[in-house]
């Protein structure tokens, strides 16, 4: 294993160790924090695929995070009330089986990513940033003004969804589910990045002109990456809804998009475990600084400024001594 892979594995092991120690010490709150960090990391893994490897600065990933959340929330609330979700073109019942909810959340997030990506990828650079932001904002306003699922107040579902053979209410068991999914997503990213597809995606970022010259058409590659990225972030959203048993338009807001981006950049752009380091550090800071001052986000802002201006490689970059992506 090279140094980068050791750092990636070490960060993942650290996350699991925190949860296990907390379990042994009887601290369920810490397990919940670790679960939250893992879910945010998963959302970041999705974004990192386009942002880090594709060089596409999407400022609208809250759209997919929120959609995943709303799919989970809507299915669960229908399962509770017994009313079908849709009666046309076929009857669809709600469900509280995670194994049924996840594919739905990913499929819907993927479809929306396909539509948003197809339009946004017509632009590049700063236009792309603004356009993805604007589309996410469109969904945010739609969620606020559409009254069927709580509108501005959000949607609560009182029972966490179920997974066969596990008690999802037990914090450590829910953490295990999230951690396994995060591990799978990290593995998938590593495979994608090393594949022909991943090489083409990185080529289109590093030298678009040359990529075209050797026969790579960036649009299709980028759109595929955008859809996969949206699906991973959508899955994270579904898990986040389950963690809180609540979804609200806040999951779709521009602030959420900014936070997902912060996880990726804080940890290190285009580094496999960057989002994990970033999300972990973010949760830790929130917890530590939140105790110091009610206005901890101002301190977070200053810290971010310092990182952007003086440590562009993020946490993983520092651990790795500034070496290779």
């Amino acid at each position, binding site marked *: 294993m090279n140094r980068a892979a050791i750092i990636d594995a070490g960060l993942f092991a650290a996350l699991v160790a925190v949860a296990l120690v907390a379990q042994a010490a009887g601290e369920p709150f810490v397990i919940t924090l670790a679960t939250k960090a893992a879910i945010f990391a998963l959302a970041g893994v999705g974004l990192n695929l386009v*942002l880090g490897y594709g060089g596409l*600065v999407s*400022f609208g990933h809250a759209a997919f995070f929120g959609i995943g959340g709303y799919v989970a929330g809507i299915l669960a609330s229908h399962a509770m009330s017994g009313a079908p979700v849709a009666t046309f073109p076929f009857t669809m019942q709600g469900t509280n089986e995670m194994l049924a909810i996840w594919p739905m959340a990913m499929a819907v997030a993927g479809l929306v990513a396909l539509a948003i990506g197809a*339009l*946004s990828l*017509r*632009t*590049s*650079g*700063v*236009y792309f*940033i*603004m*356009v993805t*932001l*604007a*589309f996410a*904002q*469109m969904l945010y*306003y*739609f969620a*606020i*003004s*559409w*009254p*069927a699922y709580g509108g501005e107040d959000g949607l609560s579902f009182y029972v966490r969804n179920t997974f066969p053979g596990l008690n999802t209410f037990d914090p450590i068991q829910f953490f295990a589910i999230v951690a396994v999914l995060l591990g799978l997503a990290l593995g998938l990213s590593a495979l994608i990045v090393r594949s022909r597809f991943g090489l083409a995606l990185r080529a289109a970022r590093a030298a678009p002109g040359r990529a075209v010259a050797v026969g790579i058409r960036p649009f299709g590659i980028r759109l595929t990456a955008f859809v996969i990225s949206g699906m991973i972030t959508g899955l994270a959203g579904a898990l986040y809804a389950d963690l809180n048993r609540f979804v609200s338009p806040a999951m779709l807001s*521009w*602030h959420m998009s*900014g936070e997902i*981006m*912060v996880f990726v*950049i804080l940890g290190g*752009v285009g580094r496999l475990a960057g989002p994990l380091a970033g999300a972990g550090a973010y949760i830790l800071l929130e917890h530590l600084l939140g105790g110091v001052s009610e*206005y*901890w*986000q*101002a301190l*977070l*802002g*200053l*810290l*971010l*400024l310092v990182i*952007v*201006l003086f440590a*562009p490689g993020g946490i993983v970059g520092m651990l790795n001594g500034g070496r290779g992506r």
Partner: protein
Amino acid sequence: MSALLVAEQVLNGLQYGMMLFLMAAGLTLVFGVMGLINLAHGALYMTGAFACAAVAAATGSFWLGLAASLAAAASAGALVELAVIRRLYARDHLDQVLATFALILVFSETTRWLFGSFPLYLSLPEALSGAVDLPGGLVYPAFRLAIIGIGFAVAVFLFWLIGRTRLGIRIRAGEADREMIAALGVDIGRLYTLVFALGAALAGLAGALVGTIQSVQVGMGEPVLILAFVVIVIGGIGSIRGALVGALVVGMTDTLGKAFLPQLFALAMEPSAARAVGSALASMLIYILMAAVLIVRPQGLFGARA
């Protein structure tokens, strides 16, 4: 829906568009000249609004407050440019987004610490607190008419500044080729600070004016910032003319859509469903418009390049 109601909504749309123009003009200038995407533009809008509220409350004069909003936003803008933004010109857009996002956090939380979370309210100045009788029997608030007037005045001023003055020539030259104008002896650092402060002052003015008709609170800048992005995507980045046209189009579409779409749907559907569908669609209308513009002209209506 009577003609009078339509006329009133058109004026509302015009007023809204003018506010968006004040925001978008600064953003588009900063992007055009420095190539910088500034998310903290909304924070400068908020700074202007709070400065206006604080000074107006302390002195009792709205006009002093308005002057303070310009001064506070311009100096905050210049300060931020010198301390942070200056280091970002050579960086990629990702660093710019993250650093200006961090600036939003700092501005918002500091303001919350200074002024608290509760919204502040400004009272209208005596001279503009009434309503004006317009031809055709329309009665319209004087302050909103004044906002439309201020917006037009700023637009004329900017067209004059960019098109007719020496500073404008330098700004346009900076857009075209920054090395060349630096080589010709123009202090490019000072020019950038000046342009940034000018954009900030316009944002602060918009914040103070909108704060007067709505309320002044932390986080007021970001929704407007995102609308300003929509405006410059539609108008084309770097173009003041594009910002003006885009702002008016967005202001009109949003206002008229919210006012009339629910009623339009009510012709074909039952009232409660029509209200839900109409208002949901109206809130998405400008983004649909933006998507349409992107399909036809990815570089925006007046943009040179995508």
